């Protein structure tokens, strides 16, 4: 981390922001009671189901995460598809 970066731009480098972001993630997991293990399993099963209908899915690239929103939390899945051109 550059000296001037941290001085003029690097708000995201502040450890208080890191603390807040980590807490938000951890608390969503605590509240939903979904362990990282279960999340991995969910991801594997989800890719299997999607692959049945969408063959161009990249099973290894599916991202599933819990997000904290303003009024509710979200389970978010990002499912990239291979381009077949």
């Amino acid at each position, binding site marked *: 981390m550059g000296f001037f970066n941290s001085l003029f731009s690097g708000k995201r480098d502040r*450890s*208080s922001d890191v*603390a807040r972001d980590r807490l*938000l993630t*951890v608390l969503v997991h*605590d509240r939903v009671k979904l362990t990282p293990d279960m999340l991995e399993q969910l991801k594997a099963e989800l890719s299997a189901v999607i692959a049945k209908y969408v063959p161009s899915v990249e099973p290894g690239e599916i991202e599933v995460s819990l997000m904290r929103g303003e009024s509710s939390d979200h389970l978010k899945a990002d499912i990239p598809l291979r381009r077949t051109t």
Partner: protein
Amino acid sequence: MSRVITITSGKGGVGKTTTTANLGTALAMQGLRVAVVDADIGLRNLDVVMGLENRIVYDLVDVVEGRCRLRQALIKDKHFPDLCLLPAAQTRDKDAVSPDDMIALANQLRAEFDYVLFDSPAGIEAGFRNAIAGADEVVIVTTPEVSAVRDADRIIGLVEAFEKGHPRLILNRLKPRMVSRGEMMSVEDVLQILAIDLVGVVPDDETIVTATNRGEVAVLDRTSLAGRAFSDIARRLKGEQVPFMVLEEQQGVIDRLFGMFGRRPRGSER
């Protein structure tokens, strides 16, 4: 009407006992009859924080098991005769009492005092459940650290599950200089994460250590900033509108520059 308030936190070492001692003393200074109860059975500490450790004859478990009357176990404070401590047992464990015992105890104390403060043990198990059993309301103490805030979040959920209403928060040991440098979560950060009402912020203050060393409480020290913060919280608990102390500095580029070199313009630290 009397009020029974439990001070709890989930995580240990965030200042529950110090908070209980200071709020109890502050309420007594404001002319109220107050009982502070050490509900941390087996790890008695409220007595040493208040400097009353040499006066203990009976304890909470003796009262619950009928070996003495409540009045015999209550210890009068050194400064305020209307402030009393009910000490925890040191040689028993939390299983020596039940939530029903604690409800009965709280109701007995209600008859004699305006405010009854229960100092809860850390954790989320039997000791914590005993400590909140008799409470009308719960105050959660936390510090601006990830572990303490995470535990506070868990405790908030449990307090609501036990139908003790919405707990309120005391944010303890805030370091305004670190907050302004972006190196500690701010009051707003913590409140946003926990979505809870704030009852007060207590700055990190060496006078807490020196007062506790002597078995005194910081609210008795007029020069103590933390003591003042606790007095303000006591008044807010009574329902008074007390403005929040300004602890955080407005940070400009100059401040940030000085911060980076580990110095600040004179007078900028509160």
